[in-house]
């Protein structure tokens, strides 16, 4: 019984990962691609880890699987955010159908304001 549930969860996770890989290959723009892989691959690996923990049926393996999922859930959005920001500053083009660009407005607003506190935070972030 536990093997059936484990097999279903693992195959579900693998399908999520495959969908993420197809999205990385097919989507038109770097920023859309990064959103596809960050969500789909993380959910896929989380499902695979749940299946592995169910199959072993031991608390130590379950803790290890939980640690992997926790690290992925913490690190993957941060990495996507930082790489996306670096890519936008480096001039990677947006898709031609993109309409909303709040980061550009945010950058303009920051340059216009001469508040010393603002410019200080800008330096520390750059």
């Amino acid at each position, binding site marked *: 019984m536990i*093997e059936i549930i*484990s*097999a279903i969860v*693992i*195959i579900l*996770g*693998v*399908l999520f*990962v*495959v969908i*993420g*890989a*197809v999205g*990385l*290959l097919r989507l038109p723009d*770097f920023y859309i*691609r*990064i959103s596809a*892989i960050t969500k789909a*691959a*993380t959910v*896929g*690996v989380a499902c*695979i*880890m749940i299946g*592995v923990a169910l*199959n*072993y049926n*031991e608390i*130590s*393996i379950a803790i*290890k*699987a939980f*640690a*992997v999922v926790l*690290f*992925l859930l913490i*690190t*993957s959005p*941060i*990495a*996507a955010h*930082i*790489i*996306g*920001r*670096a*890519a936008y*500053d*480096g*001039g*990677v083009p947006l898709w031609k159908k993109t309409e909303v660009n709040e980061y550009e407005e945010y950058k303009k607003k920051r340059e216009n304001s001469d508040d010393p506190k603002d410019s200080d935070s800008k330096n520390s972030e*750059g």
Partner: protein
Amino acid sequence: MSNWFEIVLIIALILLSFSIVLVFIRIVLGPSLPDRVISFDLIGTITIGMIAIYSIITGVESYMDAAIILSLVMFLGAIAFAYYMKKKH
């Protein structure tokens, strides 16, 4: 471990390998450096899943430790690439 379960796990490994091939096509095509960086990141994530499934097939529990380490080191790689991209311009 029953026979059909092993077959399911091997099918899962084959599908994950197929998705690594798809990601590799994006690395070859990738118009910009960040595309290649996130493709590299996705290959690491897929490898974590493959290690976990392989640990069920062989029955060696210690492979899960390798999955934990890989999930941490991958993040450092992505951050280092982003830092390098910021430095470049």
